[in-house]
């Protein structure tokens, strides 16, 4: 049984009468990777700042492992590792000094720091830049260093605000791999992103926010299934059995918009829209097989997160 590590309950925040966050509620289970997505100005950063004890909410409550972020902020801060959407650094500080400084800020004894910093630099693949000035690192490296900083006190939860913004494709892939590794280490990760492909690939759960309101929240697969009103199905038939297939499909009321074409190998490719659920899909396959249709392939097009996002949001900014 999974337990909810982060619970956001009816959270609201207004700035000068404008609702940046408007009564949102969701929870994140221990060990989940939660993708927090929404357009610019939707309220993602505001929510994250409240969760990380950096901003007072106007209403509602946020608890981390049962502790209220306003009442027990010191304990909450020890459980959180935060990577903001900017990389703040000190001038004239090397990578090692940067981590040593934050280790000191978490009261890690000086004797334990060298081994810890070496481990973290290895984890984020920055060992070779140990003595280089932070300002000389690339954006991807700085982002990884920021992650190492957030991990210095071994927090249970990682909160990352737009961690992949501005990274090149290779750095994004490396960063994704790093987050997956952290999940296997038992960390619970909340990250906001504009790059839906990253969220799609990484996240177990998502929350979609628009104009300060949650428009969808939950397990990514369950949301996909819930949102999928019609699915597109692709069939390939061996040889010249098109008529048998069309006849079998004509009995299924959920099938519409059937198109077909013969491929270079002489087999037939069919494409149609299907409005049934997964039980209906299974029955359709059984019907085709029973009708003696020689199926070479049966494939269903998965709805991308981008399509879901576009379907759920209207582009409203609070």
């Amino acid at each position, binding site marked *: 049984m999974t337990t909810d590590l982060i619970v956001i309950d009816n959270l609201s925040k207004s*700035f000068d009468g404008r609702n940046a966050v408007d009564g949102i509620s969701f929870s994140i289970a221990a060990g989940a990777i939660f993708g927090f997505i929404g357009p610019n100005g939707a309220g993602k950063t505001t929510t994250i700042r409240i969760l*990380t*004890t*950096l*901003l*007072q909410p106007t209403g509602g409550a946020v608890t981390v492992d049962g502790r209220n972020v*306003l009442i027990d*902020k*010191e304990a909450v*801060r*020890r459980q*959180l590792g*935060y990577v*903001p959407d*900017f*990389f*703040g*650094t*000190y*001038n*004239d*500080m090397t990578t090692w*000094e940067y981590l*040593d*400084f*934050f*280790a*000191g*800020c*978490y*009261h890690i004894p*000086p004797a334990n720091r060298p081994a810890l910093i070496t481990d973290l630099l290895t984890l984020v693949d920055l060992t070779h830049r140990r003595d280089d000035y932070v300002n000389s690192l690339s954006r991807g490296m700085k982002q990884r260093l920021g992650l190492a*900083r957030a991990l210095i*006190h071994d927090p249970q939860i990682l909160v990352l605000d737009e961690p992949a913004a501005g990274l090149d494709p290779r750095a994004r892939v490396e960063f994704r791999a790093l987050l997956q590794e952290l999940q296997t280490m038992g960390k619970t990760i909340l990250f906001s992103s504009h790059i839906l492909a990253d969220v799609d690939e990484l996240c177990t759960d998502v929350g979609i926010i628009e104009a300060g309101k949650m428009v969808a929240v939950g397990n990514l697969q369950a949301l996909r299934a819930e949102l999928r009103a019609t699915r597109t199905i692709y069939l390939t038939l061996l040889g010249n059995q098109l008529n048998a297939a069309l006849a079998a499909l004509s009995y299924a009321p959920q099938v519409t918009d059937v198109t077909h074409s013969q491929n270079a190998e002489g087999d037939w490719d069919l494409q149609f829209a299907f409005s049934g659920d997964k039980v209906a899909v299974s029955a359709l396959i059984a019907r085709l097989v029973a009708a003696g249709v020689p199926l070479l392939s049966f494939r269903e097009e998965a709805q991308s997160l981008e399509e879901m996002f576009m379907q759920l949001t209207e582009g409203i900014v609070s």
Partner: protein
Amino acid sequence: MIKDVPAVWRNNPVVVNELRSRMRGRRTFLLLTAHLVLLSILVFIIYITVYQETQISNAYYYSGSFQRALEASSTLGKAIFYGTVTLLLFVVTLIGPAFTAGAIVSEKERQTYDLLVITALSPKAIIGGKLSAILVFMGLLVLATLPFQSMAFFLGGVAFTEIILSVGLLLLTALLFCSLGLYVSTFARSVTIANMINYAFVIPMLLGVPFMAFLTGILSSGFFFERFFNGLPYLPAAAITYGILFFLSINPLSMAVTSEIFIQETGSYFFSVEKFFDFNIPIVAPWLIFTVFSLVMSAIFIRAAVRRVERVPHK
């Protein structure tokens, strides 16, 4: 609060970080060099000027060469001491706030403030660390001038206690102005604004109080003052005396001047009974008042700064 001081110092990463970043690079080296060069030039000018003057006046008043040399040396020592302390007072009061102005607001500008405050470091440790690092540097500026003060001591005319007292008071002045700067830094929106607010306080205080003292001096010696305050009962007389004394004591420059006058005139470092408005009124040395005032005000500024860092903002 006092019992937290060791904890603030012990392994405080803010102190290490601040000192490391301040001492790394050429800026500090150049500043310290400029400070000492300026002081050397001042001492050289004082030496040349006062030496020539003492040669002329002593030749007129004294015939014995030893007596003349002794008097000239003592005058030189005093002049160098007053000159260096006055310059240091300006340096401490003007540079201190400039250094502290950026302490917190620059963390916000370079976007490290959030990262710092969500660590396990307490607001006391953050503020204490920032202040300590700046005071260490101000202490370095003051201590670097000790050779000049020693020169004044060896030339005579200045007691060792006066030198120790001056160093202590300079450090207290640094504490007061740095605490003010640190507090301003917690609410200012930028380093420039923090500097503007700081100097809006510092310059009137630094120059305004001596100006008012000068004005009071003119009035007190004239007909106007005598006519108004002649025949005043004891309590109002004492109140006016303490008021003026307090007013003169809270400003580092007027405190330094009045403290020196107090020590020279009464022969005491702490306490005396002097005649004001025809009454013998007990008074304490201005530097003592300044010590209490600066400690209390610094504690208020530091506490206010800690509270601002503690607070979770609404915006």
